[in-house]
């Protein structure tokens, strides 16, 4: 059956790859699988920088008067720069290249049955653009006045004039890095959409696409349509900083709230740009390890689209107390609450998919379920912030910090690690060590909660976020022990990644060879070799069924890959009988 079909795929060489040397094959490759690995490497490097900065931030918050081991003391201006860079790096240079760049690039063509992205060279260009963006961002660390220090939201006028933060070119480079990053994902997003919509193989109708593809495509649409106003806003910000214009300066007739609106018009959808692919990974993993179809595939697709559309009409809930017209608050409260419904459907369907399953707790499944369990906390705490009245108290406090880490960490890291453990055999042709993976999960799960549950209480206690020292307020001093707990958690979380790094690097070189379909999964990427050769499919595959046909009654095997023709199925059946 499928094994035989795919085995024939292996020997056919593609004129492009076999001619190319090392540079052509690994550096300026146009193969989506290589580009995906480049994205993965980039996001790993950036995650080390972003995660390392969280160590400095957490140490400073727990023991403000001490010098940070391995670094030295940091001042308030450095602290602001660190939180700015931590946010910018984690959202734009870790989450997006990881979930969209790496997994989207690797899996969309394979899952829809295409040989490569629709525009391979554009794909390479989008990677090298984000590479340039990352370089610019890292270069900003070495500017004389340091990197941008106005928060990852870059609120004006703080970011609008150098005098307010004392940062000159660091902030300009921050804008340029973001602009390049947006350009990169504009190219990438277009490529995703064309690949997912037009390069589907025969029989791969829209309603047979794996949910990860649906979610990546929705994320791409949401990104493409939401980033425009922020690009316009960033152009205005750069002009303000370099040409002396006054788009955001009230004394020149400008308005600081314009930036907030433009930023959050993008910023909220951006959360879904990151969250949806993370869910997509969990949704690929859960059916495989529960040996069950996803519960309510179609409604899940519609919910995804609904969440994508609704994400454009909720942005002002970030601005309830920003000084915008208070009459706007209640309509935006309602839309914010409405958007919880599609997400509730997605999460409940994930839980319902477990019912009646035969669940194997391999490491991808552990991370996927851990992601669902923790995202629920992020989801329900969002209701507090979505209610305008409670947001008066919660806005700008550590409650917000804990909330968005509880939404983004589960999708980016629990989802992302689930994806890595799941597709590592496909990507690198070797298996990872399961014991180390489980240790990694247990440490990550416990320490993550240990960091952010205390921070909810710091926020409820009234502590504003982004403050260098809690002890400058008498009313907050009693919250200090919570910060200490969180910092122990953060350090343990960072150390807890060591088993993963060891596991990854060791398995890369020495892991046992992976079979073509080690998890007995159905989607098309498992019907080709591990790792796949350059033209992914020797013969364009043909799709006959839905992506999650596990444990079909009467079938000999508990999985039926998408490309198994009905008559082949009959043959298997007869042989089994």
């Amino acid at each position, binding site marked *: 059956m499928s094994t035989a079909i795919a085995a024939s795929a292996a020997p056919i060489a593609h004129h492009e790859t076999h001619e190319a040397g090392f540079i052509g094959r690994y550096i300026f490759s146009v193969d989506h699988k290589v580009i995906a690995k480049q994205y993965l490497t980039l996001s790993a490097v950036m995650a080390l920088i972003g995660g390392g900065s969280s160590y400095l931030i957490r140490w400073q918050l727990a023991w403000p008067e001490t010098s940070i081991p391995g670094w030295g003391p940091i001042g308030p201006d450095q602290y602001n720069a660190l939180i700015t860079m931590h946010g910018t790096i984690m959202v734009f240079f870790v989450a997006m290249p990881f979930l969209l760049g790496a997994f989207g690039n690797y899996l969309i063509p394979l899952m829809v049955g295409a040989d490569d992205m629709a525009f391979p060279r554009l794909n390479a260009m989008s990677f090298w653009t984000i590479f340039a963006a990352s370089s610019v961002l890292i270069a900003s660390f070495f500017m004389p006045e340091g990197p941008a220090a106005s928060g990852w939201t870059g609120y004006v006028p703080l970011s609008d004039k150098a005098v307010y933060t004392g940062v000159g070119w660091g902030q300009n480079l921050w804008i340029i890095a973001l602009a390049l990053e947006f350009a990169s994902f504009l190219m990438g997003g277009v490529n995703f959409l064309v690949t997912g919509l037009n390069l589907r193989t025969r029989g791969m109708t829209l309603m047979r696409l794996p949910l990860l593809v649906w979610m990546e495509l929705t994320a791409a649409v949401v990104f493409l349509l939401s980033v425009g106003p922020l690009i316009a806003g960033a152009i205005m910000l750069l002009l303000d900083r370099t040409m002396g214009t006054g788009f955001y300066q009230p004394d020149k007739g400008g*308005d600081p*709230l314009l930036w907030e*609106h433009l930023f959050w*018009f993008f910023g909220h959808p951006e959360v879904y740009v990151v969250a949806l692919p993370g869910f997509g990974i969990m949704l690929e993993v859960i059916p495989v390890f529960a040996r069950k179809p996803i519960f309510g595939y179609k409604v899940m697709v519609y919910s995804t689209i609904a969440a994508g559309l609704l994400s454009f009409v909720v942005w002002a809930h970030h601005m309830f107390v920003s000084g*915008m*017209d208070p009459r706007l608050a209640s309509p935006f409260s309602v839309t914010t609450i409405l958007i919880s419904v599609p997400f509730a459907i997605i999460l409940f369907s994930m839980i319902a998919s477990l019912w009646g399953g035969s669940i194997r707790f391999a490491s991808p499944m552990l991370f996927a379920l851990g992601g669902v369990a923790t995202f629920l906390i992020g989801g329900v705490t969002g209701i507090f912030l979505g209610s305008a009245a409670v947001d008066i108290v919660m806005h700008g406090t550590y409650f917000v910090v804990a909330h968005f880490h509880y939404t983004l960490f589960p999708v980016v890291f629990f989802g992302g690690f689930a994806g890595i453990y799941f597709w590592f055999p496909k990507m690198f042709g070797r298996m990872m060590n399961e014991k180390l993976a489980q240790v990694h999960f247990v440490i990550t799960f416990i320490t993550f909660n240990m960091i952010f549950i205390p921070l909810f209480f710091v926020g409820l206690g009234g502590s504003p976020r982004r403050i260098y020292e809690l002890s400058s307020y008498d009313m907050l001093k009693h919250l200090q022990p919570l910060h200490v707990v969180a910092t122990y958690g953060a350090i343990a979380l960072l150390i807890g990644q060591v088993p993963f790094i060891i596991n990854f690097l060791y398995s890369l070189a020495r892991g046992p060879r992976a079979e073509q379909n080690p998890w007995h999964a159905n989607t098309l990427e498992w019907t080709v070799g591990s790792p796949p050769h350059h033209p992914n499919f020797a013969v364009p595959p043909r799709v006959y069924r839905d992506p999650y046909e596990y444990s079909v009654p009467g079938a000999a095997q508990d999985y039926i890959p998408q490309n198994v023709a009905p008559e082949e199925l009959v043959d298997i059946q007869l042989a089994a009988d």
Partner: protein
Amino acid sequence: MTDTTHDAAMPHNQNGLYFFIWIWLVVLLVVGLSIFGLPIPRVVAVGLIFGVAAVKAGLVLRNYMHLKHEHYLIYLIVLVPVLFFLGLALTLIPDIVFRHGM
């Protein structure tokens, strides 16, 4: 993936139509400019000028960009962003135009 299957729906030689549309575009430009000179209330003039601009844009989109022969997906790709940015503009009116609190 070839273009030919898709473009078959489109009549072949359309150069005459393109000239015709161009004449309309020039006429509408003149119309827009003459509204600018008319002694009518500014609000009405602005409304008319943008009406004319919208008609011109529609002519270019439908004929030069062949939107009238396109799949509904292409319409969606154009219309959804227009709706989103109009929504953005409407939502910002109370803040930017009336400057709540100023």
